[in-house]
């Protein structure tokens, strides 16, 4: 049941993307408002789907938060992107940010729901995942990923918008907010992951590919924040670095699965 509800979200987010696209083409605010309403509808469905999956997990006698396998992480990543879109781009960004954010949220859901290689079943936890740190680590990391994704979306728009610094003002502010939020959340995710690794594997850091790539992502965004401090405000260089950082986020999440390590999704 939960997979059916979650699969439907793919099409709701896809519809919002098309409506945002219309908003950009037509320049009419009505389309952008409709797009945001569709996003809210999808977000409610997705939240309900996640809650239902958690409930069904308890019904099956397994009873764990739906954050433990690749399918569940994709769903949560998509949910986090939609949440941060609603938080950061609700008022100011009109349809433009939705054109970047919502197809990604939709694609993540499509990959989770329709890829034949992804197991959508609720599985019991392996011993290493049986920890209270699972929820806090995964939630903070994925919210961090989503905030970095939003920062890079704002970065792309910032680089696209022509004109003076003032014209880019609100985009720059949102970029900075999402960059800082992402940095706090991702740092929290790395720290909680280290504490968990200390208990589960007996060491807080082991240069596992996932850990190393998480550090790479963290270093890139730390550098972006220092560039922001040096330049005095969000500049083209900062925007470029957030876009560069997105590549690292994607590799940290997807690419590392192709490297041998303790974090690879099974």
């Amino acid at each position, binding site marked *: 049941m939960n997979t059916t509800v979650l699969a439907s979200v793919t099409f709701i987010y896809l519809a919002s993307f098309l409506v945002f696209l219309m908003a950009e083409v037509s320049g009419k605010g009505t389309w952008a408002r409709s797009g945001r309403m569709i996003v809210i509808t999808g977000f409610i469905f997705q939240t309900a789907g996640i809650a239902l999956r958690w409930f069904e997990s308890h019904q099956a006698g397994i009873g764990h938060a739906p954050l433990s396998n690749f399918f569940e992480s994709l769903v949560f990543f998509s949910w986090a992107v939609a949440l941060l879109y609603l938080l950061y781009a609700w008022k100011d960004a009109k349809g433009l940010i939705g054109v970047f954010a919502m197809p990604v949220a939709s694609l993540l859901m499509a990959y989770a729901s329709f890829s034949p290689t992804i197991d959508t079943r609720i*599985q*019991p*936890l*392996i*011993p*290493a995942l*049986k*920890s209270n740190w699972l929820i806090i680590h995964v939630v903070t990391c994925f919210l961090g990923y989503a905030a970095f994704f939003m920062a890079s979306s704002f970065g792309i728009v910032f680089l696209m918008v022509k004109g003076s610094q003032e014209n880019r003002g609100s985009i720059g502010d949102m970029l900075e907010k999402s960059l*800082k*939020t992402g*940095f*706090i959340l991702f*740092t*929290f995710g790395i*720290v909680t992951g*280290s504490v*968990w690794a*200390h*208990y*589960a*594997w*007996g*060491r*807080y*850091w082991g*240069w596992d*590919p996932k850990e*190393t*790539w998480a*550090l*790479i992502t963290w*270093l*890139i965004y*730390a*550098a972006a924040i*220092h*560039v922001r*401090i*040096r330049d005095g405000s969000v500049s083209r260089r900062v925007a470029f670095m957030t876009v560069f950082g997105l590549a690292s986020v994607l590799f940290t999440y997807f690419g590392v699965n192709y*490297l041998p390590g303790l974090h690879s999704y099974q």
Partner: protein
Amino acid sequence: MGTRLLWHMRLLKGLSSLRLTIGLLLWLVFMCILGTVIPQLPVQATADVSMATHVAGLLSLKDVFHSLWFLVPTIILGLNAAACMYLWRRTLERYRAEPPLPRAGLHEITMRTADIPEKVCSDFKVILAGTHKTVQYEDGGDPVIMGENGRVRVYAPFIVHAGIILILLGAGLGFLGYKGTIEIPVGQESNTVTLANGSIMHLPFRIKCEDFKIDYYENGMPSEYRSELTFVQDNDLSMHTSVLVNHPASHGGILFSQSGFNQNPVAALKVGTPSGTSRFRAAEGLIIRLKDTGYNVRVDKVAEDLMRMGPCVHLVIETPDAPKELWIFKEFNSIAAAHPGLVEKMPQLNPSLVTPYTFSLEGVTNSYATVLGINRDPGIVFVGLGSMLFLIGIIISFMVVHERVLITATEAPSGLVVKIARMKNGKPAAPEKYILEQEDSSLEVRS
């Protein structure tokens, strides 16, 4: 002395520069990428290698995270943070308790009032006190009211950089510790640790594995691994504890975690010989020397259930002619009864193939050995403290706004001139409306 000070300050400024920080961070990004792209060799033991080999190892990219290419920039990053903290004292001077009114970004209000400047400032102080922490002082003879919020943000860079330094210090101290594994068969004791670099060390106490258990879910997936351990110090039982995944134990400053296990099936073999019957308990790899002939029997494989025919052991017997292979099944009699002529077709199943012996298998049992992760890390407290400081620092830095509102009043021919300056995070900002609208009917506002 002056030249020395200049040199000292130039070095500090160079070390604390943002350009250096950014360069180092990006260099570390590059090295980390190399560390995941180039296959990394395990850490090598350094005790028995020459200095030249040791230096070559430090320059090698096959162990990036222990190479000079990674360690030196990391140390410079720590110095960069330390220099920032040192120079941060100067930045603090800008935030001293009684700052002068800034020259730029002032909002001026001309008030047609008979009140004296002190009275007007006092009124503004009451207004500001509702939302700000206020102080009153004089600047060039004029009274100044300062309202301030979020002063803690001023200390955020110090907290963040202190956190980084503590993390790096803790990571450095970690090199003084050791990591490794210890394998203990159930019912046995050990103090022999295989370190990450392959060398062997002995703990000052012994660990006995009383039991090792694996619990399973209904679908066959393992749900828990549990080792029951006793730490033995000077032949006294000093502590009994359970170690599970996510539930390590600590003893003598060393962390013991459930790292894995090894499963060793053991065959109970019976060998009939002219001089009587011998019994052996044999694990894979064991070599048994037979009485009477002196033949060596190597136990090649022990299986609990081979091809659904039950317990089985594969033996290789060194005879003078040639090595002979034997597959001995526990249920040989019933297998042979079900397949008449089997021994003729497949002589390697004949328990009496090698004269004058007759082999039989009485059973196969599983013997577990727990594998514990060993970690002694003297820097972990520093890393933990540094991480907490860093998190607190960035939360303060990114979430708290340091706001100051400075108000002064002076008498002028046109009336009483009130000057207002508002700074957010050190940058000029427009005064809030509620301050400008206090005397709206009598004000002439000019920014």
